[in-house]
Structures are given as structure tokens and as C-alpha cells.
């Protein structure tokens, strides 16, 4: 007889086993699992790539959606170009020249892409859990502020101070996400409203702290903290540009977030809660814990984005150092379809726009607000994507029905001549 209760000591569960680490699973199935041949061994890289682009969903289709969305958004923004008295050719030339036209420009593109990439990851972690963290901007500001204050006031040797600043950034961002997280988890207050409120509180509080009467304002520079020692900053990695070591942090974060989401139990819980919270809770996942974890991770990553700007670009905290990276990050995350690699690509696209915007303004006379319009259009087209996919599927079905008239889809056309007689 195949009674398959695992042999576990009866006493073990009266004191919950702390070293658990084994799911209860049918012995038969465990045996079948062991007996089943491994699918062909693959290298680490290909396994990792498949984990980053999950569940067989065609990478080609995703890249296609990416390119179409970007093209449509740029096309829809074209009227602004002409209204500004410029034309498409001049604008494209200025944009490309400013973003990819020289070593300096390329460096600048990456410099702009770094905070977008990191905060895009922050947005994605929360979105994967079904949480619309619109407060990434505020979390980023508080992360930058915390890093700036630690860098300006704490006395530590360089590399240690750098780590302390980054840690402060994580803490600042996570703290700012904690309040909406707790309100969501324990009071059921929708995170959209609370994170937005936290944004405005962050803007005002941070401005106060470096205002003339604020406690952290620099003696020489208004609306900023004192400078962070050079050796505690993120070093420039490409001489002659502003490109700094934050790039390494960003790349490490892409890998870490991909790993987290697709290769750890916690990531599974985050995605499960995002996909169906009731099913998650029925499957033994604590919704409250997962919501708080996700928001803290998201806020912490956003805080790193702020800290990296402070440590890599400015060397001190400036009031309003972020032109709205946290909002643009929503577009980055959505354009990247919430996948870490996609977000990296989207960040590079928006980084190019941001870098090129300076040239765009100088040469073609087009306001740099254009970038914000394009990001809004990208988000709008992403919102419309499901409808477009539905339409495509519908058209494909109709087309295949036409090709194969014997299939049941087109039985209605045949029904008049169909000799089948009910009963």
C-alpha cells in the first residue's frame, strides 16, 4: 500500500521546527522526481538568460513590443518638434548627437541611464507584487538625502564611508516606503494615494533640511549639504566623461533583482501575491509580510538610486537634484515589461533622451520637457498594449479561420450545407 505520509517525528511539530527547510511532499512523487532524467544540461549563462526572460514568452515578441512602443511614442511627440519651429531631421540629429555622437555624449547617456535603471528596478519590484509604488521619486530623494547627510557628517575612512552612504541611502528610501507599506498591509489603504503623499512630504522635508534655517545646509552652498570627501565618492570609470562606478552598482542590481524575482522563494512570493493575492494567501503566503517586504525592497532600491546620484554625480546632496527620475522610472519599468533586462534597455533609451535633451534644446530649440512627454506617451501605449494584443489575436484567429475552412471556427459558414442532423 502506498500510504505516503513522510516519516517525520510526531514531536517535531509541537515545537515548530526552525531548521524546517523541507516541504511536505508525496514520497511517490519525490521518487519519480529523482528518477526523472535531467533535461539536457545547459551552461550557467543560458540558464540565467532564460530566468531573466521568464516562462518561454518570446523574447522576440517582447523586443518587438518595446520597439513599436518607443517608435509610436516618438512619432506622437513629433508635433512638439514642429511647433517648436524645428523639424524631424534636425531633432533626430541633435538627439543622437547629444546621446551617442561622441565619447562624452555616450558617457552622459549612461550617466542619465543609471538612476533610471536603478529606480526602474525599484518600480518593477513593487509592480510585480501588484503594488503601484508611485512614491519612488520621494524614496529616491530621501535615499539621496540620507547618503548626503552621512557623507557630510560622519567621519570614516573613504571606502567605509562610501558603504555607509549607500547603506544610508537604502535606509532612507526603505523608511520612506515603510509607512505606505504598513498602511497597505494593516489598514488596507491604497498605496497609490499614500506613496504620492509621501512624495510631497519628502520634497518639503528635504528642502527644509538644507534651507537656510535647516540643520544640514552647507556653509558655502545654499540648498545643499557639505561636500562628501572625494575618496568616499563613486569614482569616474571612463576618463574624460562623468561616467562613474554607479554603473557597476546598477548592473549588479539588475542581476540581483532578476535573481530575486525568478530564483528565490521570496521572489516567487512577491510575484504570486502580485498575480493573485487570495491564491497566495491560500497557499500559505503571508500577504502582510510580502507587501511590506516588497515595498521595503522597492524603497531601498530607490534609495540606492538617489545615493548613487549624490555619490557619483554631485558629490553632495542638492535640493531638487532629481528632475523626476522616480516618475520617469515608471515609464522605464513598464516599457521594460517589468523584466530586469528589459528595464536596462528601457533605461538606456530614456538615458539617451535625457542626455540628448540638452542638445535638443540648444540646437533645435525644443524644450527638454519633451522627455517627460515621451515618457508619458510610452506609458500610455503600454496601457493600450493589452488591447492591441487582443486585436492582433483576433485578427490572427480570423485569418487562420479563413485559411482552414474545415476548422470549427468557421463552421457557421458551412452550417447551411452541413448535413448533420440533431438527434
Amino acid at each position, binding site marked *: 500500500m502506498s500510504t505516503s505520509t513522510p516519516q517525520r517525528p510526531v514531536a517535531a511539530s509541537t515545537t515548530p521546527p526552525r531548521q524546517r527547510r523541507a516541504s511536505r511532499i508525496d514520497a511517490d512523487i519525490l521518487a519519480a522526481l529523482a528518477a526523472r532524467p535531467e533535461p539536457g544540461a545547459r551552461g550557467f549563462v543560458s540558464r540565467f538568460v532564460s530566468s531573466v526572460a521568464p516562462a518561454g514568452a518570446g523574447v522576440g515578441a517582447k523586443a518587438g513590443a518595446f520597439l513599436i512602443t518607443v517608435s509610436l511614442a516618438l512619432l506622437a511627440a513629433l508635433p512638439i518638434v514642429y511647433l517648436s519651429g524645428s523639424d524631424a531631421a534636425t531633432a533626430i540629429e541633435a538627439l543622437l548627437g547629444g546621446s551617442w555622437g561622441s565619447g562624452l555624449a555616450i558617457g552622459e547617456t549612461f550617466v542619465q541611464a543609471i538612476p533610471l535603471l536603478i529606480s526602474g528596478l525599484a518600480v518593477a519590484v513593487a509592480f510585480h507584487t501588484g503594488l503601484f509604488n508611485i512614491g519612488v521619486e520621494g524614496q529616491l530623494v530621501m535615499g539621496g538625502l540620507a547618503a548626503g547627510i552621512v557623507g557630510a557628517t560622519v567621519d570614516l575612512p573613504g571606502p567605509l564611508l562610501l558603504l555607509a552612504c549607500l547603506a544610508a541611502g537604502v535606509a532612507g528610501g526603505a523608511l520612506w516606503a515603510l509607512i505606505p507599506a504598513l498602511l497597505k498591509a494593516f489598514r488596507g489603504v491604497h498605496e497609490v494615494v499614500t506613496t504620492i503623499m509621501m512624495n510631497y512630504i519628502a520634497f518639503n522635508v528635504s528642502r527644509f533640511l538644507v534651507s537656510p534655517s535647516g540643520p544640514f545646509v552647507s556653509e558655502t552652498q545654499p540648498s545643499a549639504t557639505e561636500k562628501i570627501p572625494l575618496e568616499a565618492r563613486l569614482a569616474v570609470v571612463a576618463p574624460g566623461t562623468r561616467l562613474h562606478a554607479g554603473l557597476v552598482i546598477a548592473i549588479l542590481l539588475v542581476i540581483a533583482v532578476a535573481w530575486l524575482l525568478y530564483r528565490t522563494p521570496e521572489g516567487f512570493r512577491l510575484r504570486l501575491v502580485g498575480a493573485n493575492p487570495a491564491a497566495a494567501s491560500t497557499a*500559505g503566503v503571508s500577504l502582510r509580510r510580502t507587501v511590506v517586504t516588497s515595498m521595503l525592497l522597492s524603497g531601498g532600491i530607490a534609495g540606492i538610486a538617489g545615493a548613487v546620484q549624490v555619490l557619483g554625480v554631485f558629490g553632495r546632496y542638492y535640493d531638487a537634484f532629481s528632475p523626476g527620475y522616480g516618475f520617469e522610472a515608471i515609464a522605464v519599468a513598464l516599457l521594460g515589461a517589468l523584466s530586469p533586462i528589459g528595464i536596462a534597455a528601457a533605461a538606456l533609451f530614456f538615458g539617451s533622451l535625457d542626455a540628448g535633451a540638452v542638445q535638443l534644446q540648444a540646437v533645435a530649440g525644443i524644450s527638454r520637457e519633451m522627455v517627460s512627454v515621451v515618457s508619458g506617451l510610452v506609458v500610455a501605449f503600454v496601457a493600450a498594449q493589452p488591447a492591441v494584443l487582443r486585436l492582433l489575436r483576433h485578427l490572427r484567429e480570423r485569418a487562420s479561420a479563413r485559411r482552414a475552412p474545415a476548422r470549427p471556427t468557421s463552421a457557421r459558414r458551412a452550417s447551411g450545407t452541413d448535413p448533420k442532423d440533431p438527434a
Partner: protein
Amino acid sequence: MTSPAVRLTGVSKHFGPVAANRDITLSVAPGSIHGLLGENGAGKSTLMKILFGMIHADSGAIEVGGAPVSFRSSADALAAGIGMVQQHFSLIPTFTVVENLVMGRGATGWFSRWLRPLDVKTARERAVGLSERFGFGLDPDARCGTLSVGARQKVEILKALWGGATTLVLDEPTAALSPPEAEELYLVLERLRSEGTTIILISHKLPEIVRLCDRVTVLRDGTVVGDREIDDEARTDARARAGLEADLVRLMIGRERPETPSRSARALDTVLEVRGLGDGGRFGPVDLDVAGGEIVAVVGVEGNGQSELIDLLIGASPTRTGSIELDGRPLQGLSTRRRLDSGIAHIPEDRHERAIADDLSLTDNASFGFIDGAPFAPTRFWLGKRARVRFTEILIERRRVRASSPAAPIGSLSGGNQQKLVVGRELARAPRLMIAAQPTRGLDIASTTAVHEALVGLRDRGSAVLLVSLDLTEVFTIADRIVVVRGGRIVGETSTGAADVDRIGAWMSGAEERTAAA
């Protein structure tokens, strides 16, 4: 001959590659009750939604009262005198009865729609009038969310009649009613017929069809497979009735009634022991024992404590009073995850709500509850994928799930195949106690049989099974013992062998209080 109240000719409807209705022709005589019989998925509801203008047929013609019609929306159908009572309630819980009745019916012309106050007073009077005429006894100002299932059903009918419907379509109206409530509804329907209303009754319950209908049309796999007159002889004469019922079953499922799984009850030690369990609110106190090797069915009218019981057992809501023991170990205070680890498995009632996540792959869906610890997650920082894929493949093979690949989103599968995967996943927990809540609702015959076999197999291997079901046929098919819940308490208990449907019905409706428990 008068023209039929409703005539459908050659109606077909496809959803993607699936043909829900194929060339259906149906004629309903005015002032009659016309049954529409068929298994789940036979296409009954689709057909009636077409008649009601909620979905559009690919082809075919509809006539109402002899005149051809083409409905673009349910508003058109309502205007033509067709009312529909959906299987899922279409009432808004936060609205009062009157608000639900006048919703969308009130005014024409922009002034009276946008500016003039809604005439609630007249509407209330009319509601009271109709309610009295048909013996409904409804409070027009009660919020619908607070009404009993039977009362809500009556509001639904009132709502259909409100717009002056002369033809009424009822989709499985007694699915959630206790037998006495259902009987009350039958009387209402007969009264409506005697006043000239035409009724189309969708059902898969044979006794109901035979009891009420003048004529019945049987659907199978989206086509009409038969049409039978039901006369008084069939209603009164036992042999004629048995013959008719057998005939209808054959038409409905295309073969004789399937064998029921063997019942080999040999109760072992108590697995689940519940004492004085309550949620601090309207549920409890409840005492309940389920032994290994036994299937205990919890029956009752929907909303009488079934979901509270399940939530308490799986740890979704906190135990306020009493105790739960599994194999002698207390469960109260443990999280859902720990309970799964101690040997509870759970097939949730609403699959899309609680059992699966449509957008995730089969592999991810098969992993629910297996992501803490070996074999798939040996450490906190590693959740294997290949092992989970192989696990999913094993479930697919063993439960005969029809799926293209473990990487496909589970939403792309049919309901039956989704449920098979869920059942496989829950069986893989090697449960000591399986909680199965309406495990076959909405499934076709083949999938239903597969689920029943799985539960019976588990029972035969010595586990305890708690089956929560509204389907008495299912309960009589596989359960060994029946407990009846009402108002959050257990009010009756019997072994299936000694069970008597009337007595169970009386317990469910409260006509008979708990007698000395068996």
C-alpha cells in the same frame, strides 16, 4: 396555432476554436415552462445569453412572438419582453431592493434621467404590490447584501418581471437553494405560468425538469440532441417517470449513467478533531471528527458557515474559540503554511479566486506551497526551476492534464484541466486531511469523475477527506458520512447509507433542529 413565444433557428456561436452552440433550433410555446437540460458546458447558458442579447450569435435567427428580432444588448431583449435570471446573482449588494429593481429602468429623456428625482415612492409601492401578488414577502428597503439566498433569488425574478417581461429565462435557479426553498420557488414559477408567463428553465437537475416543465430540450456539446414532451403521466406514474429520466440521462451524457466509485468505508483513527471551534462571530461552536479512510461531506445552503469552517481549518482566519487537532497535534495558532506542512491540503471552492494565478505558468501554479525548503528551495536564496518543471510534468502525466507545456500560462487551459492540476498539486502534499470545497463545480462529466476518483483513492489510502459541497448528487456519490450546517453550526449528521434526502433538506432549511446525532 399561435406563434411560439420564442423561436431560435440555426443559432451558432464560437469562442475562438471552441463551438459553444452549433446550429441550435428551439421553439418555446407561450405560457409554458420549457426546460433546457444539459451537462455543464453543454452550451445552455451561452444560448440563453444570446437570446438575452448579452452575447451575439455568429449566425442564426431569433423570433419573439413571431416577429424576427436582433438584440444588440440586454436592453433590447428587455424591451422585447424577455427577462433573465442569471446563475450568478446580478444584484448589487450595497443597493436596496427597490434600487436594484429600478436600476437602468427609470427614465427616458435627458431631463427626467439627469435632473428629475427618481420616483422611489411609486417604485416601492409597485414592488410591494408585485411582491404580494406572487407571495414573495420582500422588504423593498432592505439592502440586497443582507438578504438570504432564497430572497435574493426572488428579487432577481421580481427584477425580470419589473420591466414587463412576458418570457422569463432562469439559469439554474435552485443551484444554491435548500430543498424547501427550491420547493417554494417551484410554486412561484407555477403561479407565474398560470398567469400566462412563459418560462425557460435551464437546469441539469432531472427531478426539477420533470416536476415543472411542459417540454424539455436536451443539449450536449453545443447541439440539440433531443426534445421531449413531459405529460402528467410522467409526473405521476413512477415507471413512466423512471423511463423518461433514463431517456433524458442518455441524451444528456450520451451514454448510461456512469458507475459510481466503490464505497469501501473503513474508518481508521481520527485524523481531524475539532472541538468547540468558533470564529468569535456568527460561526460556531462546532464539533467535528473526520477519521482516516473516510469522506465526510459538509452540506448546507450556501453561506451557512462552510467557508468560515474552511478558513478556520486552513488558518486563513484566526481561531477565537475551541481547538483543531490533526493527528492529535493542535493546529490553532499555526500559519497556513505550517498547516500545509503538517498535512492539510485544500482544493479551494473558487478556482480563479484562490487556487490558481491565471497569468503564471503551470510550473509556477504547481509550486504553490512547495517553495519553502527541499526539494525545490534548499536555501532561502535558491528556488530551483528545472526540478519544478519536472514536478509539473509528473503532475500533468499523472492527472492527465491537457496542456501544451509546463511553461504555458495556466489561464490558457480549460477549467477542467486547471482543476486537475490543482487536484494533483494538493494530492502531492501527501495530505492527512484533504479539504475539497465544491471540487467539481462547473466541470464536465469526465473531469468530475477524475476528481471523484482522486478523492476516493486518497480515502482508500487512509487519509481523511472533508468534502464541502452544494451538490447532493455528488455527496451521495462519494461521501461516507454527511453533516449538515446551518447558521454556522452543525445541525444534523447521518451516514450516507442511512441518509434520507427529505430529512437533510429539513436540516438545511431549519425545519428540523438537530436530533440525537448518530
